[in-house]
């Protein structure tokens, strides 16, 4: 086998809800459907009742143009909507209003790209096209999808505005696919059109082929956390077949999130025949130069620019800056913390190391944790004021993340205040010196060996001894012994 993943080609088809819109794409029903009673946010348009007419949401077009500009796309001067016909209960009209790039169809935008900084290299991922389309309704099954006796349908989500973003097969590994989605999410969040923390707001399908072989489509990937798992599974499956000399079948597979496997959908070819034709209930949309220029002028700062600013304004290393900006929430958290306490490097270090590691190990997103910029800053101030040691802070941080309690409250409750009581420390040092005669002798001739004694003191106080003071006291005591014993 050639280089582990060098022969893998992945293309993604990402569906993103423009969650900042108040209403659906073609009707005035609220698009804030999460947690709402089924079928309460519906009207004749999004239920597909006869005689109803869709009218395009202006803001949706503005947002979509913004996304297309941020992804460096060529924007069509005139776009059309098409009907994609298929029978499925999540589509009340039996067709989805979408866009088409063949047979005279013109999507919103084409030929874009974005750059990924991945494993020390800059990679260009090309975007083939961006469509504007409507989300289908939500299907509910009793038990598993293949055993449920029937399907229940909630149309509250039906008609919510989606962007379909399609990449060229430029992605080379599952990890890179995840980084791509993270970057895409960060861009869309910086534009203020999308909140990736909402469940199901970003979903994707993937095309994978190995060594120029057959292309397999994997559907139903629900988040960027899942994309890495789904693609890794699929690559392992295909390699397993190839090693046994079995041809990979061209097919569509479904990612089963619970079982963490892809399963064949056994769909008939005919179901791919969507009979696209123009949606005559909607008139063409002209995207004039002035309109695009106006949108461009209103575009907020994008992640790539923000990384550069973090480097120049706060003096952060490039790697740290790009990790912080990989999520808008993280970057905002950082800047808010710096506003409260002007110590960007300390704040960044705590975020980059302990905070992110904890979130990653527990598979949490920042918004799922209870830490705030104010609480992180309070903790760093406690260190700077000498109330706690860095070691204690490392133990406090996870508690802040989980409970949301203030650092000083945790310190008080758990008696974690740094010990700088001279008499207490002196007595402890006497004991440690008595218990470790050999280490003391070593330390008398070799300064470096004194670290061991400081370590013993920290251990005896569970990390609460003031590290600077402890080390000073131990050095002083050693010096005294040297004088007594005549050692230079």
């Amino acid at each position, binding site marked *: 086998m050639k280089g582990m993943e060098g022969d893998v080609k992945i293309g993604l088809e990402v569906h993103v809800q423009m969650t900042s819109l108040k209403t659906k794409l073609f009707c005035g029903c609220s698009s804030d459907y999460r947690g709402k009673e089924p079928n309460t*946010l519906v009207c004749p348009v999004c239920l597909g009742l006869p005689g109803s007419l869709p009218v395009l*949401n202006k*803001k949706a077009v503005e947002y979509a143009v913004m996304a297309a500009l941020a992804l460096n796309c060529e924007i069509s001067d005139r776009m059309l909507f098409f009907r994609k016909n298929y029978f499925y209960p999540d589509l009340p009209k039996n067709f989805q209003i979408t866009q088409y790039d063949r047979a005279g169809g013109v999507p919103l935008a084409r030929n874009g790209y974005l750059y990924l900084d991945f494993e020390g290299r800059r990679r260009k991922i090309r975007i083939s096209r961006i469509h504007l389309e409507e989300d289908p309704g939500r299907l509910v099954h009793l038990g598993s999808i293949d055993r449920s006796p029937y399907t229940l349908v*909630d149309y509250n989500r039906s008609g919510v505005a989606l962007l379909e973003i399609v990449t060229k097969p430029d992605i080379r590994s599952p990890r890179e696919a995840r980084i791509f989605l993270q970057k895409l999410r960060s861009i869309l969040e910086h534009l203020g059109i999308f909140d990736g923390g909402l469940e199901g707001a970003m979903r994707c399908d993937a095309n994978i082929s190995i060594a120029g072989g057959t292309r397999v489509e994997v559907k139903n990937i629900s988040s960027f956390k899942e994309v890495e798992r789904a693609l890794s599974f699929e690559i392992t499956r295909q390699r397993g077949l190839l090693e046994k000399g079995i041809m990979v079948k061209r097919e569509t597979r479904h990612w089963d999130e619970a079982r963490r496997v892809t399963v064949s959908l056994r769909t008939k070819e005919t179901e791919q025949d969507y009979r696209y034709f123009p949606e005559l209930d909607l008139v063409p949309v002209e995207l004039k130069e002035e309109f695009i220029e106006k949108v461009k002028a209103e575009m907020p700062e994008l992640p790539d620019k923000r990384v550069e600013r973090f480097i120049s304004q706060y003096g952060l290393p490039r790697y740290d800056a790009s990790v912080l900006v990989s999520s808008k929430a993280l970057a905002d958290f950082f800047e808010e913390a710096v506003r409260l306490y002007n110590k960007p490097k300390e704040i960044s270090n705590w975020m980059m190391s302990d905070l992110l590691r904890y979130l990653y190990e527990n598979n949490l997103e920042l918004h799922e944790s209870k830490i705030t910029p104010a609480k992180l800053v309070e903790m760093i101030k406690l260190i700077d004021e000498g109330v706690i040691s860095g070691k204690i802070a490392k133990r406090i941080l996870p508690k802040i993340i989980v409970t949301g309690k203030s650092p000083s409250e945790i310190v008080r409750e758990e008696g974690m205040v740094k010990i700088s009581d001279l008499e207490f420390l002196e007595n402890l040092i006497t004991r440690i010196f008595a218990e470790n005669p050999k280490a003391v002798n070593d330390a008398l001739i070799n300064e470096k060996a004194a670290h061991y004694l400081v370590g013993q003191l920290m251990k005896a106080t569970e990390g609460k001894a003031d590290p600077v003071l402890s080390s000073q006291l131990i050095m002083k005591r050693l010096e005294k012994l040297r004088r007594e014993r005549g050692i230079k």
Partner: protein
Amino acid sequence: MGGSRRIPVEEIRHIAELAHIELTKEEEIVFTEQFNRILEYFSMIDEADTENVPLTYHVLDLVNVYREDEVHESMKRDEPLRNASKKEGRFFKSPRIV
């Protein structure tokens, strides 16, 4: 262009399948006949000279019909499900699809 390309019965079966409609053998013959008769009218259109005519996707001379992103009241609580032949609780009910 022009001429009369006939649709075979297989095409009718395919379209019926896409539309989830079951046709009897007799119906297949009837529909094949009717489809082809409809298409004959189109072959008359094909005879028109469209050399320098741009593609028409819309007959209205309108572009950019928008609405603002403002929430309007949805249907009253019980209205959406009122005409549904099958429902359960607040859901529409449909046959299983996989």
